[in-house]
Each structure stands twice: as structure tokens, then as C-alpha cells.
């Protein structure tokens, strides 16, 4: 594998105190779809900003297409495309005008640009709306326009910062299709970030789980799930008594963790262990109020490596950022 993105011990400290990225090291191979999965504030956007030359790193080494991003930012800019997290398409231009401007900024020849614009607008199904002002577009249409803008100069590496943030399930699925198509039809490398587990799971060849500026795990979705080693039984037991020890004593139980009244029990085989486990608890006088058996999924992978569930991690700063950005945009124009 030839690495097209190489990051070594990257650190970014904001204002001398906020360690947004705290010493991460990873490589992305040419042609790969690589994803950063992490909650709000994990450092995903910061990493992308450094790799796309928008931000000066504090320390470490970053190369994109073999070029050092700090030493030769202009060269790097030529070979990458960026679809940023916030929507940057210009409201007061039409979709086509936005694309033309982008083509000019990336030095695409006018004739070639015109052809590609038609092609790309068809790809993201915006032909009909192409000559309408972008301010009449829905959020999903803007995102799609943004994606096609990022593709106009056929970059070797495309950075997608939360490509489906704020989109409904249907539009999100369409977006996934677009990204899969890209992968099928070209050798473009995609570096994306997301905080949707299903998205990382279904799109990415490899996933880096990032939390608080650190990479907690990095592998293919399948291996990450396998690494959990078997199934997970979640239990709730009423009362204050700690049953962790009794649970651990049951045959087939790999480990057990208690978190305010609920237990996460890793077992080799859920089907055969559940009955003896429940029996053991009731024998010790516990009354089980909830039980569920889950095969490993990305949410559990996340929980395993960061110690909290992604949904909890999101709770802290959770609000619909898209809606907020949208409101700001509207009130301003």
C-alpha cells in the first residue's frame, strides 16, 4: 500500500491551552475510504484543517500526496478537494455559477469545466435546479452541490467533513451512494469524518475512532467489531448491590463492567450464556429488570474504546448545528 496521507504525532493546541489534536499518527492508502469517527469536539475538523493547509499545526508531521503540508501548502492545495462541515456554497449565485467559480479557482479550463459541471450536476441530481439561486435550495441540495464542487478538479484526495450532517435518512442514503460511486469509478482517496456509526460502518474501508484529540482504535469495521470478542449482554438489576463478581463467575463470561446500575457483560456466545447468567443472578438475590443481547456493532466498538457511548458523548454539545447555521444564514441575508 502506498500511503497518500501520512500523519505522525500531530498535535494542535489552540490559544496555548486547548489540545484539540493530541498526538495522532496514522496513514491512509491511495484509493481508500478512510473515516474518523468521533463525537463533537473530538478534533476531527481540526485534523482536516491541518491536512488541507487551513491551519498551522503545533507539532508533528503531515504529508499529503507525499508533500509536506506546512512546507508546500500551495502544492497540496492543488491535489486535494475539501467539502467543509459548514455550508459554504454561495447563496446569491445559482448552482451552476457556484460550480463555475469553483472550477475557475481550481484552474479547470472553461471548456472542460462546462462538461464536468453538467456531468457532476447530473451525478448529484441537481440538473433541474442548476440555474436557480442556491438560497432556494434545501439543506440536502446544498450539501450535494457542495460535494460536486469538491469534485470539479478531480482531486487525488477528497476531504469530506461530516458529509451527511443534518440530512434526513433518505438524503443521507443518497449521499452514501454518491460516495460509493466515487470509490467505484475512480482511484480517489476519501478522508471523511462522521459521528454516525452506521455511516462509518457502511462506507469506510478503515475507521479511526477519535475522542478528545486521540485515536483510540484504528482498523477495518469488521476487525473492530471482532476485537470486541463475541457478544454483549446488557443488564439492569434493581437495588444497590454490586453483582459484578457473581456475573464474572458464570461460565462463558469474558468480562463484566458496571455503570450506574447497568452491566455490560461480554460473552463468547450470547445464546448459550444468557440463561445461566440470569439464573446465577436470581440465585444471589438480584432481580433483573432489563436484559438485551447484542451482536457487536459500531456503537459498542465506540463504547469499548472510549468508555462512553457515542450517543452520550454527543449529548453534551448536542443541538442541531445545521439548523443553527441555517438560521444564521437566513437572518443575515
Amino acid at each position, binding site marked *: 500500500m502506498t500511503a497518500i496521507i501520512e500523519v505522525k504525532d500531530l498535535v494542535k493546541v489552540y490559544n496555548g491551552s486547548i489540545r484539540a489534536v493530541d498526538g495522532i499518527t496514522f496513514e491512509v492508502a491511495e484509493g481508500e475510504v478512510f473515516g474518523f469517527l468521533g463525537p463533537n469536539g473530538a478534533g476531527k475538523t481540526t485534523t482536516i484543517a491541518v491536512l488541507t493547509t487551513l*491551519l498551522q499545526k503545533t507539532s508533528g508531521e503531515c504529508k499529503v500526496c507525499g508533500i509536506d503540508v506546512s512546507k508546500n501548502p500551495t502544492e497540496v492545495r492543488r491535489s*486535494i478537494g475539501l467539502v467543509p462541515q459548514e455550508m459554504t456554497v454561495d447563496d446569491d*449565485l445559482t448552482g451552476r455559477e457556484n460550480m463555475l467559480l469553483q472550477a475557475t479557482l481550481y*484552474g479547470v479550463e472553461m471548456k472542460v469545466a462546462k462538461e464536468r459541471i453538467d456531468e457532476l450536476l447530473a451525478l448529484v441530481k441537481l440538473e433541474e435546479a442548476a440555474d436557480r439561486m442556491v438560497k432556494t435550495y434545501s439543506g440536502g441540495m446544498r450539501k450535494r452541490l457542495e460535494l460536486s464542487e469538491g469534485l470539479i478538479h478531480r482531486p487525488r484526495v477528497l476531504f469530506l467533513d461530516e458529509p451527511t450532517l443534518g440530512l434526513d435518512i433518505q438524503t443521507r442514503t443518497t449521499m452514501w451512494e454518491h460516495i460509493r460511486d466515487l470509490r467505484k469509478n475512480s482511484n480517489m482517496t476519501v478522508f471523511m469524518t462522521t459521528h454516525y456509526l452506521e455511516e462509518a460502518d457502511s462506507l469506510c474501508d478503515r475507521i479511526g475512532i477519535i475522542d478528545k484529540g486521540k485515536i483510540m482504535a484504528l482498523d477495518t469495521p469488521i476487525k473492530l467489531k471482532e476485537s470486541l470478542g463475541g457478544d454483549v449482554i446488557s443488564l439492569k438489576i434493581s437495588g444497590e448491590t454490586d453483582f459484578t463478581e457473581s456475573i464474572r463467575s458464570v461460565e462463558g463470561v469474558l468480562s463484566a463492567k458496571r455503570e450506574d446500575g447497568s452491566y455490560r457483560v461480554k460473552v463468547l456466545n450470547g445464546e448459550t450464556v444468557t440463561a445461566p447468567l440470569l439464573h446465577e443472578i436470581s440465585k444471589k438475590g438480584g432481580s433483573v429488570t432489563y436484559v438485551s443481547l447484542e451482536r457487536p456493532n459500531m456503537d459498542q466498538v465506540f463504547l469499548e474504546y472510549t468508555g462512553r457511548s457515542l450517543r452520550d458523548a454527543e449529548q453534551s454539545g448536542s443541538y442541531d448545528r445545521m439548523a443553527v447555521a441555517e438560521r444564521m444564514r437566513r437572518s443575515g441575508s
Partner: protein
Amino acid sequence: MIRETTALMVRELKHWYRAKIQIFMLLIQPIVWLGLFGQALPLQLPPAALNGAPDYMSYMSVGMLAVTALFTCMFAGMSVVWDRRFGFLNKLRAAPIPRGAIPVSRILAAMIRAVISALMVLLIALIFTHIPGLAGLTVTSNFDVMSALGMLLILVLLATAFSAVFVAIALTIKTQETLFAVINLLNLPLMFASAALFPVNSMPDWLQAVAKVNPLTLAVDGMRQLLFSGSVGIYPLWVDILGLLAFSVVLVVIGIVVAMRALKEK
């Protein structure tokens, strides 16, 4: 460089003419000023005190042209702040274009807008003179092609100087609120400490000293000499023009340096 700069400049201008309301607001202001303010302030001064203008309204109309150019340039800063807010500026920073294209395209677009606005005000002032009950600009010189080119040159230089200043300020300042504060801090002093609305002779000495080096003064002084026969300028015409040229060159250079620093990655 030229292709990207032009494309960005055209984007700015498209924004402008598509926001019809903005143009309307811009024109409503001088109309109100010429229509009301001018009537309410019928300064009875002899042409000698008015730079050769036949009446105060003619004198003030010329000032209005320059002030309109100033205001238009100030508001060019707003769009810069919006672009930062919505990430468009970052998109430009990520693009493989010479960074200089960003301030240069803005300055050019602001300059063009300012000149067009000033010319529209000129047209309004010229029409107003012919409407009974209203007053406007009465031209008394032998206005020829050279005078027209002179006027245009003066407006272009003035607008270039101011747009460079405000584009640089807007790129350095990150928020709309601060930009408004700075604009408010600058606009009235710039306008009143100049010969735009009132003759400098009637000002106290210290104000006169400031007014005499204000680019607005140079611009109106030059334009009045082109528009009114027998106008004795504060400076000779060529000094006005050279002064404006110096102002715009220096301010554009400073503006671009400041802008490039503001666009650097942190």
C-alpha cells in the same frame, strides 16, 4: 491570478446588483440629503467661498458624490465578514489561488461599486436642478471629455484608496459588531473633517489642518475645479490628482499586506 481575481470580482458584483434593495437604499440616502438637507440648510454664500460653485446645493452635490463613494466602500467590508462567517473565506484559503487574489478582487469590486454609485448620484443631482422646487448640481464650466475623464479618474482613485482601507479592516476584524463600531468611528469624522459638505475656510484651524489632508477634500476640490468655472481650488488640480494617486497606491499596498497577514494560517 487574473482569471481568479476576475471571477471573484464578478461574484461580488453579482451579489451587488442582485441585492436590488441595497442599491435602492444607497440611492435613497443622497436623494434625501439633496432633497431635504440641502433645502433646510440654504447657506447663502458667494461663489468665491464655495470653490466657485454657483450655489450651496451645487457645492454640496459634489460632496455627496465623494461621500457616497466612501459609504459604499465601507459596506464592502460587510460582505467580507459574512464570507468569513459562512466559511466561504476558508474555501478560498483552501483553493490553489494566489492569496493576493482575495483582497485584490474585493478592492476592485468595491471600487467599481463605489464609482457606479457616485455616478448615479451625479445623475440624480443633475436631474434635480431641472425640477422646479428642487435644487441640485448646476455645472458652470465648459465640461468636455477631458473633464469627464478627470472626474472619473478622481472617483476611481478615491474609491480605490477607501476600499483598500475597509477591505483590510474587514479581513483583520473577525466580527460584524466590531466592524460596525469601526465604521461608525470613522465615517462621521471623515465626512465632516473634509471640504465635502462645508468650505474649509469656515472651520477652526485644527479642523482645517485635518480637512486639508483628507482624501475626500482632495477629491471634491478636484471635481469642483472641473465642474465650476472660475473655481479657485484649495490646491491646483494636478496636486489633487497626484495626492489621491499617492493615497491610493500607499493604502492599497498597506491594505494588501495587512490582508495577507490576516489570511495566513494560524
